[in-house]
C-alpha cells in the first residue's frame, strides 16, 4: 500500500514535469500570436479586444446587501463595541487635554533619558516643545489618544493570533494567509466597511489601526516562538512542565527579543494607520490637519509642512522610545529610581500648571503662524518664478511618458500633444520594427528578449489600457507557471477572475499602468543610484540617512511637496509614489552588489575585465536575485502609496476605493480594495519566486 501511494505521487509529479514545458510554449505562442494580430490589424478581430464583463455591479451590490443585513442583525453588538472604543478614546483624550504640555514634556524626556540617554531625551524634549509651540497641541493629543487606544488593542490582538498560529498548525494555516491580506489590502479599503459597521468618528480609525498593526506583532510572535531552540523545549518536557508552564517560563521569555521587534513595528504601523484614518474625519486630529492643508495646495504649504513635521516627530520619538525600551534588558528598577521619576513628573505638573508656560506657547504659536506664512510666500514666489519649468516638467512627463503608457502611441501622438501626426506609414514602420525585432530575436533563440520586445512594443503602441484581458490573464498565469508552478498559476488565475467578477478590470488596468510607470521611473533612477552607492563609500554615506528618513516618515507626508509643486494631478501622484517606492530598489541593488563574493570580483579582474565589463557581465547578473527582491518591494510600496496618492489625483482602483469610502458604498470600496490586494499578492509571489529561482540557479 505504501508503494502504491508513492508510485502514484511520483507519476503525477513526473507527468507534470513533462507537461510544464509544452504548456508554457504553446500558451506563450498563442498569446504572442494573438497580440501580433491585434498589433497589425485590431479592426479585423474585435472579439479579441473586448472587455471581459462590461462593468457589472452585482457582486458589489451583493456585498452591500449582505453588510446591510449584518448591520441590522448585529446592531446591539456593534453599538457596544463602538461605544467602548469611543469612550476609551474620549477618556484618554480628556486626560491628555488636561495634562499640561510641560508635564508631558518632562515625563517623556525623563523616559527617554531612562531608556536611552541624553540624545533621546533631547529629541523628545524638542519634539514635544515643537508640538506645543506650533499651536497644534490639542490636535496632536487627539491623534495620540487614538494611538493610545489602538496600540494596546493591536498588540493584544496580534499577540493572541501569533500564539495561536505558532501553537496550532490548523490555526496557522488560516492565520498566515490572512496576514498577507491584512497587510496588502490598501489601508483605505479597511475603512469602508468599518465606517458602515461603526459609524463616523474615531472608532473605525482605531479598529482599522488594530487590524493593520496586528500582522507585524503576529509574525514576530510566530517567528520568536518557532525559533525557540528545540533543546530548550526538550528541557521543558523532561522537567515535566505542563504546556502552560513551558510556554510561560521557557518559550515566551526566549522569544522576548523577537516579539519586541514586532511590538516596535506594530506601534509604528498603528500610528501610520491612525493618521491615514483622518480621511474619515470627525475627530479633529493632526492627520486631518495635514490632509486639509495639503488639499489647499501651495497656498497652505507652510501649515501642511508644520503639521506634517509633527507626525514625523511623533513617529520618530515613539519609534526610538519603543526600540530603546526593547533594548533594555529586564533590569530591576530600584525604588529610588521610581521615586525620582515620580518627583520629576510631579515637578513638571506643578510647573505646567503655572500660567507663564501657556503664555509662552501663545507667543511662539504666533511666531509659527508668521513663519508658516513666510514659507507660503517663499513657495508661491518660487512657483511664480519657476512655474514655467515645473509646468514643462509636468507636461512633458505627461505627454511623452504617462499618456503613451496609458493609451499608447496610437492615440497619444496627435498634433495637439506631440505636434506631429502619427501617420499610417509611421504606424506601419513602428509595427515593422517591433515585429522585425521580435522575429530576429526569436531566430537567434533569445526568447526572453524577443518576448520583452513584443510586449513592450505592444504596450507602447496600444497602452496599458489597450491590453486585452485574456493576454494579461494568460501572461500572468504563464509567468507564475514558469517561475513557480501550477499552484501559483491557479492562484493567480483565481485572483484575476475575481477582479473581473468584481467588475474592476478596467480600473485594475489603470492602476497597473500608474504603478508600472512609477516602478519604471524607480528602476531607471534607483538602479544607477544603487550601483553608485555600492561603488562609492561616500555616495553610500550620503544616501543612507536619506533613505532611512524616506522609509520612516508616514506615507501622507510625501503628498505635501508633490502637491505644493505640481498641484493636484496624476503627475503629483506619480511623484509621491516614486519618492516613497524608490528606496527599496536603491537599497537592494546596493546590497546585492556589495555582497558579491570577493573571489568572484578578483577572478574577473584577473581575467582582465575593466570596471564596466565587470559590472555588466559579473556583478549585475550575480546580484539579480537581490535586485529582483528590491523590485518586489518597490512594486509593493508603490501599490501601498497608490491608495494614498488618490488624494492628490491618482485614478483607477484607488479612486474606486476612495469613492466607496466617501459614499459609504462598502461593496465598491471593498471589492476595489481586494482587487488591489490581489494585484499586490500576485506581484509579490511571482517576483519572489523568480528571485528564488534565479538564486537557486546561481
Amino acid at each position, binding site marked *: *500500500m*505504501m*508503494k502504491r501511494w*508513492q508510485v502514484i505521487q511520483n507519476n503525477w509529479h513526473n507527468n507534470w514535469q513533462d507537461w510544464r514545458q509544452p504548456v508554457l510554449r504553446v500558451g506563450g505562442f498563442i498569446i504572442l500570436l494573438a497580440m501580433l494580430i491585434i498589433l497589425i490589424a485590431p479592426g479585423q478581430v474585435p472579439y479579441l479586444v473586448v472587455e471581459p464583463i462590461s462593468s457589472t455591479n452585482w457582486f458589489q451590490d451583493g456585498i452591500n446587501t449582505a453588510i446591510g443585513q449584518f448591520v441590522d442583525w448585529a446592531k446591539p453588538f456593534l453599538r457596544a463595541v463602538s461605544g467602548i472604543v469611543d469612550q476609551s478614546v474620549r477618556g484618554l483624550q480628556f486626560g491628555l487635554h488636561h495634562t499640561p504640555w510641560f508635564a508631558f514634556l518632562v515625563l517623556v524626556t525623563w523616559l527617554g533619558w531612562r531608556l536611552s540617554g541624553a540624545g533621546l531625551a533631547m529629541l523628545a524634549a524638542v519634539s514635544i516643545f515643537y508640538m506645543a509651540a506650533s499651536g497644534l497641541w490639542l490636535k496632536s493629543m487627539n491623534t495620540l489618544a487614538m494611538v493610545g487606544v489602538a496600540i494596546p488593542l493591536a498588540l493584544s490582538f496580534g499577540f493572541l493570533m501569533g500564539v495561536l498560529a505558532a501553537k496550532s498548525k490548523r490555526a496557522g494555516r488560516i492565520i498566515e494567509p490572512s496576514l498577507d491580506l491584512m497587510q496588502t489590502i490598501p489601508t483605505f479599503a479597511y475603512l469602508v466597511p468599518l465606517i458602515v459597521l461603526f459609524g463616523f468618528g474615531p472608532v473605525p480609525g482605531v479598529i482599522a489601526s488594530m487590524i493593520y498593526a496586528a500582522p507585524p506583532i503576529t509574525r514576530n510572535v510566530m517567528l520568536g516562538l518557532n525559533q525557540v*531552540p528545540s*533543546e*530548550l523545549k*526538550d*528541557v521543558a*518536557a*523532561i*522537567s*515535566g*512542565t*505542563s504546556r502552560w*508552564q513551558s510556554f510561560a*517560563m*521557557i518559550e515566551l*521569555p*526566549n522569544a*522576548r527579543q523577537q516579539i519586541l521587534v514586532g511590538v516596535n513595528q506594530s506601534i509604528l504601523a498603528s500610528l501610520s494607520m491612525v493618521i491615514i484614518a483622518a480621511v474619515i474625519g470627525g475627530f479633529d486630529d493632526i492627520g486631518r490637519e495635514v490632509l486639509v492643508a495639503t488639499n489647499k495646495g501651495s497656498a497652505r504649504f507652510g501649515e501642511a509642512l508644520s503639521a506634517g513635521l509633527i507626525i514625523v516627530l511623533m513617529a520618530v520619538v515613539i519609534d526610538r522610545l519603543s526600540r530603546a525600551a526593547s533594548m533594555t534588558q529586564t533590569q530591576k528598577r530600584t525604588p529610588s529610581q521610581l521615586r525620582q521619576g515620580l518627583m520629576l513628573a510631579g515637578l513638571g505638573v506643578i510647573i505646567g500648571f503655572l500660567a507663564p508656560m501657556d503664555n509662552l506657547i501663545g507667543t511662539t504659536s504666533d511666531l509659527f503662524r508668521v513663519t508658516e506664512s513666510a514659507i507660503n510666500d517663499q513657495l508661491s514666489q518660487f512657483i511664480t518664478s519657476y512655474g514655467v519649468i515645473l509646468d514643462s516638467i509636468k507636461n512633458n512627463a505627461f505627454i511623452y511618458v504617462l499618456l503613451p503608457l496609458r493609451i499608447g502611441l496610437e492615440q497619444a501622438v496627435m498634433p495637439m500633444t506631440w505636434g506631429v501626426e502619427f501617420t499610417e506609414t509611421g504606424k506601419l514602420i513602428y509595427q515593422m520594427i517591433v515585429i522585425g525585432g521580435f522575429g530576429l530575436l526569436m531566430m537567434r533563440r533569445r526568447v526572453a528578449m524577443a518576448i520583452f520586445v513584443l510586449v513592450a512594443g505592444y504596450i507602447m503602441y496600444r497602452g496599458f489600457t489597450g491590453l486585452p484581458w485574456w493576454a494579461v490573464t494568460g501572461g500572468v498565469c504563464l509567468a507564475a507557471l514558469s517561475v513557480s508552478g501550477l499552484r501559483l498559476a491557479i492562484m493567480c488565475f483565481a485572483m484575476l477572475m475575481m477582479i473581473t467578477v468584481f467588475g474592476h478590470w478596467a480600473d485594475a488596468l489603470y492602476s497597473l499602468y500608474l504603478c508600472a510607470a512609477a516602478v519604471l521611473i524607480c528602476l531607471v533612477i534607483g538602479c544607477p543610484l544603487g550601483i553608485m552607492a555600492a561603488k562609492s563609500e561616500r555616495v553610500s554615506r550620503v544616501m543612507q540617512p536619506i533613505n532611512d528618513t524616506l522609509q520612516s516618515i508616514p506615507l501622507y507626508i510625501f503628498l505635501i511637496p508633490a502637491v505644493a509643486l505640481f498641484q493636484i494631478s496624476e503627475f503629483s501622484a506619480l511623484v509621491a509614489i516614486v519618492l516613497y517606492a524608490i528606496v527599496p530598489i536603491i537599497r537592494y541593488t546596493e546590497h546585492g552588489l556589495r555582497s558579491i563574493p570577493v573571489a568572484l570580483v578578483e577572478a574577473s579582474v584577473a581575467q582582465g575585465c575593466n570596471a564596466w565589463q565587470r559590472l555588466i557581465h559579473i556583478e549585475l547578473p550575480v546580484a539579480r536575485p537581490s535586485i529582483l527582491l528590491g523590485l518586489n518591494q518597490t512594486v509593493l510600496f508603490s501599490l501601498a502609496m497608490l491608495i494614498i496618492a488618490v488624494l492628490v489625483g491618482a485614478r483607477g482602483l484607488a479612486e474606486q476605493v476612495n469613492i466607496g469610502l466617501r459614499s459609504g458604498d462598502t461593496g465598491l470600496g471593498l471589492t476595489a480594495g481586494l482587487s488591489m490586494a490581489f494585484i499586490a499578492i500576485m506581484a509579490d509571489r511571482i517576483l519572489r519566486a523568480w528571485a528564488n529561482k534565479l538564486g537557486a540557479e546561481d
Partner: protein
Amino acid sequence: MKTQDRINQIHPVKLSCDALWKVFGNDADTLKSDPEWQAMSRAERSETLRENGYIVGAEDISFSVHAGELFVIMGLSGSGKSTVLRCIAQLQKPSFGHVFLDGECLDTMAEPALRDIRRRKMGMVFQNFGLIPHFTALQNIAFPLKVRGESKADANRTALAMLNLVGLDGRGDAYPSELSGGMQQRVGIARSLAVDPELWLLDEPFSALDPLIRRQLQDELIALQARLKKSIIFVTHDFSEAVRLADRIAIMRDGKMVQLGRPADLLLNPADDYVARFVGDVSRLQVLRLDDIMTPDSKIPSGFDKAIHLDSQMTLEQCLVDLDPKQNKFVITDEAGKPIGHCTRADLLRIVSEGASP
C-alpha cells in the same frame, strides 16, 4: 561468574526497551494498524521501509538497564543512538515497541502521568547543555523543582546543594552566557540531578567540550556515580569514553544494535569489523580486568601454590606495572579474597599483544 553479571542478577531491571522502532516519514504512525505490515518479519519491515524512502532511526532495539548500572549507547552520528535515548525519554514517541520504567509502560501513558514520572524519576543532560538563557545558573537548577510546585525557598535550597555537588559554589547568580562550556555542563548536570531522579539520561554530555575538560568531567561523573548509584543511560560517539565509563555498552549502526556487552566483551570478542575498528583504538591494558581474562576455577590448581593472589578488579596495566618480574603465575580472587580463577604472565602478554596488532 563475572562480577558484572553477578551485580545485574542482584539488581532489578530499572528500564527496558522492548523491540523499539522509530521511523521517520509522513505517515509512519499509520503503519501500526496495517495488517500487511503486521505480518512482516523484522528484515522485511526494514527493507520495505527503506525502499519507500522512510528513514529508520531505530530498528528493533531491545535491552534492559539494571538499577545502579551505567549503560552506554555508542555509535557514530546518524547511527540512531540519540533517537533511542529520546524515545526512552518520550521526547519522541516510538513508532513501534515499548519502553518500560519500573515495569510501567511509558509510551502508552497519559500525558499527566508521564509528566509526573518526569518530575520525580527522570533527569536528562543535553549535548548543548540546554540551559535556559534568561535564567541564572541557580534558577536553571531550581527550574524542575519549581515546575513540580516546590516553594521558592525549598527549590533554592536544593539547587544550592546541587550547585555545591558539581563544584560551582558561588557561581549561582551567573547567567549561562557568563560561564565556560565546562561550567555550563556542570549546571546542566546539577539541574538534571535536582529532582533526585532514579533514571539519569545523558545525551552526549561531554561532546561539546574540549578534551581536557571532557576527561575531568568523566572522572567527576565516575565519582558522582559511585556515590549516587543512579541508573544511567549515557549516549556518546566516543568509544574510549564509553569504555571508560560503561558497565555495559550497546553499539549502534544505521539504527541497528550491532553488539551489546561489557567493555571487555567488546574488546575480546568484537561482533564484526565495525566494532573491531573502534576496539583497535583503545588500550586493552587499561580496560581489561583480571576477571576478563582469567581461567575460571574456584580451586587453586597445582603449580599455583606459590602464585601471588590478585584482586579480580585489577586492570592489566596495574597488574603488569606493579608486579615483580619474576612472578609468572597469578591466582585471581574476589573482593572477599576467595580464589575464583587463575592466569599466567604468558596469558597476559598474549592478550595484550593481540590487541596491539589486530
